[in-house]
């Protein structure tokens, strides 16, 4: 192998043209080893083939490993593909193809061990192949199945690598390999220490493989690299099972064993002197078994005391597979550093997640914050406006197939559709129910039920896709721990945009001024020449329109169903109420609190989002106890009541 490596370096230095010769003579020299290869004998042949440095070597080795090399009766090797009785042969050097009868040829079938050796030899060539994709696949195959033999060729291939990214990858991989397989412990420790800043899953896997342990049990602690010793009493039954498996103790009878033993020893309807119908009592079962054991009919019961005594007599430990303690210690220390880095990264990742959840809540709730918060109108059909927006996006995509263009059309169209729906609803229903909030709640419930069923009738019950354009697909990968999909970033940006827009409209435009005036004192506002009816209509339309846009955004990352609105409505109301009614900043604070809270609970109890939602709602109910007016409470007259 060394010589092969040396030859490789030579090849690279002098260029392939210097060795213009044919492969067949080399093969013939080693014909015996190639025709009947074994793991011990094939290395010489492989070395010789490798030393030749010929461009056709890679192809030959690949075909050999794939069992596609055939030998003619006179000993000449060909690359061949059998089809029926014929075989199409390719000359190993010239590449010319001929067809011949199969009977004169014999297929070479190297066994698994040999094929692995061929593969390793092949990797050396693939690593320096002029074709970038071949080099990449070689590196990927090493990463998949790292082996000690790959270390040297990999190291040798780093220097001549021209592709920057692949070179970095090779260096990283070489580091992983040396950490595990380098000959000199000093090299290994150096490589291990260099991993301390690498939070990738691969690096952690390397460290964990170095630290792999085997559990064992013995009379006394062996003289080896001991990872840990255990107190057997922590899980006495498991520990005893380990003892049994190691043949240090007789097996403990299970309930089923005892039952079977009792059943096989029924004599004239009695077991050990007890009647069958007494066997409902577990203590009598035990006594009967003891009686049977005393008669020598069954093995003696391993009692708790016997078990504990046996456990006390032995040491339970875990041994590192790696015998060198210095290396395992170094890996241990580095792993600890890496894990604390990973934990930090996870917190960052969680924060990103929470941020994106908060922006979704914010988007869903901001329209509600306007209608409920500013106007004091409860709109239980708000969720259905979100759904309408999402379905608008879906319908647009049916007609416009370019996803970017369809998104550009869908956003304003969704606004227009839901704005119109909001205005119609305000004129027909809400207007008649001002100052009767409970009634508004009920009437909008009715609308919500009707709209939901209408959507079901039109679009069916199954989820409809709302596909995002390619530039929104994928994720922004910071490292193996921190990553966030572009959709979520887009939703975050959209949420920020809307926050700015709403604040701008309310604080800087004529409409906003009039809205605030009507909110604070409708009578006074109308005597100043503001038409409260028109303002209410516009405000309601604005809130509904924003729900439509939120619908498109939510539809991009979640499914579009007729029930998607009801998934968000309670959370949206919570967001508005927690944040403080009548204040856009409050809604932001509410969304942040609920988003972060929910992610935080999910982190404490992973794999259970339902529980997180449950506890979050409970938390909100309790929170209202302490701040009934929400996080950002209005003060003074505007607070009303």
């Amino acid at each position: 192998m060394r010589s092969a490596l040396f030859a490789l370096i030579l090849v690279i230095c002098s260029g392939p043209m210097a060795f213009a010769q044919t492969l067949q003579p080399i093969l013939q020299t080693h014909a015996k080893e190639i025709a009947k290869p074994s793991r011990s004998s094939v290395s010489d042949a492989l070395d010789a083939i490798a030393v030749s440095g010929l461009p056709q070597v890679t192809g030959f080795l690949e075909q050999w490993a794939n069992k596609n090399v055939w030998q003619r009766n006179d000993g000449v090797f060909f690359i061949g593909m059998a089809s029926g009785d014929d075989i199409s042969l390719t000359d190993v050097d010239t590449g010319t193809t001929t067809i011949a009868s199969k009977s004169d040829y014999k297929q070479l079938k190297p066994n698994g061990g040999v094929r692995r050796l061929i593969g390793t030899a092949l990797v050396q060539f693939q690593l320096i192949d002029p074709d970038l994709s071949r080099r990449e696949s070689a590196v990927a195959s090493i990463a998949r199945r790292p082996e000690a033999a790959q270390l040297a060729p990999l190291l040798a291939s780093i220097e001549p690598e021209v592709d920057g990214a692949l070179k970095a990858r090779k260096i990283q991989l070489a580091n992983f390999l040396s950490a595990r397989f380098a000959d000199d412990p000093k090299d290994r420790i150096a490589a291990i220490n260099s991993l301390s800043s690498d939070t990738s899953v691969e690096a952690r896997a390397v460290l964990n493989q170095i630290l792999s342990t085997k559990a064992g049990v013995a009379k006394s602690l062996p003289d080896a690299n001991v990872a840990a010793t255990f107190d057997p009493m922590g899980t006495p039954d498991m520990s005893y099972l380990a003892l049994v498996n190691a043949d240090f103790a007789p097996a403990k009878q299970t309930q089923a064993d005892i039952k079977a033993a009792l059943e096989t020893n029924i004599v004239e309807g009695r077991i050990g002197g007890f009647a069958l119908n007494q066997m409902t009592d577990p203590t009598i079962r035990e006594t009967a078994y003891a009686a049977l054991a005393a008669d020598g009919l069954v093995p003696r019961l391993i009692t708790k005391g016997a078990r504990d005594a046996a456990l006390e007599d032995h040491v339970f430990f875990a041994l590192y597979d790696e015998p060198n303690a210095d290396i395992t210690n170094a890996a241990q220390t580095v792993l600890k550093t890496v894990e604390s880095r990973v934990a930090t990264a996870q917190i960052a990742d969680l924060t990103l997640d929470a941020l994106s959840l908060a922006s979704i809540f914010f988007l869903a709730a901001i329209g509600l914050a306007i209608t409920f918060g500013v106007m004091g109108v409860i709109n239980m059909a708000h969720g259905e406006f979100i759904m309408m927006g999402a379905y608008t996006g879906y319908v647009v995509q049916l007609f416009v197939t370019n996803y970017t263009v369809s998104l550009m059309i869908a956003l304003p169209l969704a606004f227009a559709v839901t704005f119109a729906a909001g205005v119609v609803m305000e004129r027909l229903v809400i207007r008649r129910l001002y100052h009767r909030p409970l009634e508004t709640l009920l009437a909008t419930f009715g609308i919500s039920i009707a709209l939901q069923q209408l959507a079901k009738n039109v679009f069916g019950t199954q989820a409809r896709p709302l596909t995002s354009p390619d530039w929104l697909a994928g994720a922004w990968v910071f490292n193996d721990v921190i990553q966030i999909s572009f959709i979520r970033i887009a939703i975050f940006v959209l949420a920020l945009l809307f926050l700015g827009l709403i604040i701008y409209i309310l604080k800087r435009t004529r409409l906003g001024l009039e809205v605030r005036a009507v909110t604070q004192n409708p009578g006074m506002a109308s005597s100043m020449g503001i038409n409260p009816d028109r303002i209410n209509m516009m405000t309601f339309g604005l809130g509904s329109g924003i729900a439509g846009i939120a619908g498109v955004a939510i539809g991009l990352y979640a499914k579009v169903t007729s029930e998607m609105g009801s998934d968000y409505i309670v959370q949206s109301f919570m967001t508005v109420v927690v944040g403080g009614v009548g204040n856009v900043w409050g809604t932001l604070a509410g969304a942040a609190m609920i988003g972060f809270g929910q992610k935080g609970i999910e982190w404490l109890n992973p794999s259970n989002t339902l529980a997180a939602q449950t506890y979050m709602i409970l938390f909100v109910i309790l929170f209202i106890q302490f701040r009934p007016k929400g996080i950002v409470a209005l003060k003074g007259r505007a607070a009303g009541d």
Partner: protein
Amino acid sequence: MNNSFIAKNPSVLWFLLGLSLFTVLVSILSEAAGTALISTSFLKTLGKTLCLCLVAIAMDVVWGYCGILSLGHFAFFGIGGYAIGMWLMYDRTKDIVVTSLENNILPPTPDEITTAIGSQIFGVVGSSEFPVIWAFSHSLTLQLLAVVLVPGLLALVFGWLAFRSRVTGVYLSILTQAMTLALSLYFFQNDTGLRGNNGLSGLQNIPGLDDVSQATLSLWFFWASAFALGSGYLLFVWMTSGKFGSVIRAIRDNEARVRFLGYHVESYKLFIFTVTAMVAGVAGALYYPQAGIINPAEIAPIASIYLAVWVAIGGRGRLYGAVIGAAVVSLMSSWFTGGGAPDINLGIYVINWTDWWLVLLGLTFVAVTLFFPKGIGGLFDLLARKGKQS
């Protein structure tokens, strides 16, 4: 006293008379006791409807009389159903397990029986351990207590928290809806120990009554439901008449004024909220053995919204209105969605009522809220006025 009570509330006599006549009529027409003109499945539907009427009058008291639009009473109804369902399922499974273990050579120990029951019940959620909340499931008495106490306690704690911090109006509605959502999400989890979204099933089989036919059982449950509705009606009429009734109606109309008059408003509201929750639990405990199955979808927030819809359509603020609303709307729902209503062919489009019923219901509800705030019950006022005029 009773005389004057009846005299003050003539509707009670009419209602009880109507209910008794209805019960007798249905019994005569039923399969078990008479002419079999009413199928057992329809008898069950009628029995279930009576339970829905019971929870509707509870809703009417808390909303129509006391002004608390609770969107959580159907959750209490569901809890009642779960409470009785746990005993039904445990005891029924125990019967099955004991019978199947009888053929074993060794008679089973209590432990073996429990484990076998556990793996029967919780096999669907991949467990065989009994969760803590099943601790009393072996005892009918304790589970019957739970039917009343668990909803009552939950309502007491939630109501105390909410009323104490003076959460009123729409805020309270939203908060109760959040509570309902939290509950249904909680019941949906497998960890809860209530079989997740599988719910409890086989509740129509009453342990120990294997030799009684379903037809007879249904009739018994129908009678029980009718009795419960009658008693609940009496209880609530008694509660809402007299001074106590005046106070809670006053709270509905102007809470602040009642508080200034020196009444402890929160106690009244809490009492009403808790008692109605208990009655809802009882109604649920009678409903689900007739339905045969309960799952967390039953207590989803939308169910409580439908409850409010029934009461609003029937006419809130009068108990018989709630009964009419619940009966009419729920029977119509099952008629329309069950394919009973004929499709309407418009030439270009066929209106299939299975699909369009909810649209109709929703719009009717909007119309009722806008134009007939008194609901169907309001028609009786018109009749009464006409009667006086002529």
